[in-house]
């Protein structure tokens, strides 16, 4: 298994894992006043902060998934600590649940997938593995490489924002494609940074305070379309 087809599957928005319920922070940002011309800036900001952290966590989970025995708990704990806002941890766990359902269907017996049952740290919320951990475990089972995995996680975040923008800040859909392609230098830098991380302790920990604040406000918005 070369993992190349699996890579395409993992970054396809049609993968049935519930990702369409998520706006990657765009809906809370729009509620706080973010305008359409600021979307490219939001994309770059996410690449430098929350997205690179998630991509690096996924790479660590992939590596953990190829060891014997598999232990996802240190990466789960490190990523949870770097996701200080409870609604974002819960959203990540909810999204991870969809990927986990898929992983059980595709590769339930793979040690990386089986070990997800013990990824969550007992007594702490969320009680489920965060999405990057699950994605990394599935990547291990499907033979996806580190760079491809990191790029998939980063690309998915960009595509999630721009496709939500089509609903929240409608405009020319072709603009959204151009926004993503314009992020390539920052995205590739984040791929390299993700692969350079060698342990859970050295997972990037950059604060994105507005993202956190907006996410805290979002559950109180009674007219919301998206999970977060």
């Amino acid at each position, binding site marked *: 298994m070369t993992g190349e087809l699996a890579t395409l599957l993992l970054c396809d928005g049609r993968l049935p*894992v519930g990702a369409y319920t998520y706006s990657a922070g765009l809906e809370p940002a729009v509620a706080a006043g973010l305008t359409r011309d600021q979307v490219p800036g939001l994309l770059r900001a996410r690449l430098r902060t929350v997205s690179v952290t998630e991509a690096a966590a996924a790479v660590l989970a992939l590596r953990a998934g190829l060891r014997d025995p598999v232990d996802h708990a240190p990466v789960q704990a490190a990523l949870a600590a770097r996701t200080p806002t409870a609604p974002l941890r819960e959203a990540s766990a909810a999204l991870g649940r969809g990927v986990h359902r898929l992983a059980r269907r595709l590769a339930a017996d793979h040690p990386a997938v089986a070990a997800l049952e013990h990824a969550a740290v007992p007594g702490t919320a969320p009680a489920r593995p965060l999405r990057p951990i699950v994605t990394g475990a599935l990547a291990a089972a499907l033979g996806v490489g580190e760079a491809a995995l990191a790029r998939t996680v980063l690309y998915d975040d960009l595509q999630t924002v721009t496709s939500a923008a089509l609903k929240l800040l409608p405009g020319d859909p072709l603009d959204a494609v151009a926004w993503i392609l314009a992020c390539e230098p920052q995205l590739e830098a984040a791929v390299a940074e993700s692969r350079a991380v060698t342990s859970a302790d050295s997972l990037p920990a950059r604060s994105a305070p507005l993202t956190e604040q907006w996410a805290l406000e979002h559950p109180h918005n009674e*007219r919301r*379309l998206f999970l977060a």
Partner: protein
Amino acid sequence: MPDSPLLPSDAHASSAHSAHTSSPQSTHAHGAHPPTRRALRVGVAGPVGTGKSSILATLCGQLADSLAMAVVTNDIYTDEDARFLRSAGVLPTDRIHAVETGACPHTAIRDDISANLDAVEDLEAAHGPLDVVLVESGGDNLTATFSPALVDAQIFCLDVAGGGDVARKGGPGIRGADLLVVNKTDLAPYVGVDVTRMVADARGARDERPVLALSKNDPDSVAELADWLRDTLARHRAGTLVPRDPGPMAPHSHPHPRP
């Protein structure tokens, strides 16, 4: 229970009303599923404003005293329908979950059912064992139906106020749902619709599958709706209910020239 035109012929073998307490029957038709204790999942789909939430409220009002029930709503904005149902007071509020659908209600019930499966599983974990989980679709178009991986049976809901010709338009929900409801029949005189004609059109599109002319102000029709659900639950318990996809768009009926 009197014979009802809504019930399939095999339903009379078991008493629907004893479903709650009966143990699963071990003898059933060839090809049937094994008996199950998982909650019966029933989807309610149909266009916006036809009365899906009202059907849920009616079913809960009729049956929640005798069955353990819970509800999942899918709406454009998170919890519009959930709030309606909570305010109707027919179920404890923590038995009503709303899922975010990212403005894709049809996706959430058919193409990618993750969010709804999560909600159903959470309700069963928190309140189980449950007898019935009702899943309400967001209002959508005539092609929106539930995946058989999400629900065991589905109701498609039209209403007379949407126009008497809608039943003739066909589509997978009208043609293939387990039950087609023509709702708000009490409004027919005010909107100039002939209910008998509309129901006949609907029956014509559905082979032998049942059609119910429903008004929440008509107790007989409400009783028939409740009986349909009890019977469906009995068949689910007995392992004879096989979830069916209503299928693709109805084939068009004009003759094609032969090559």
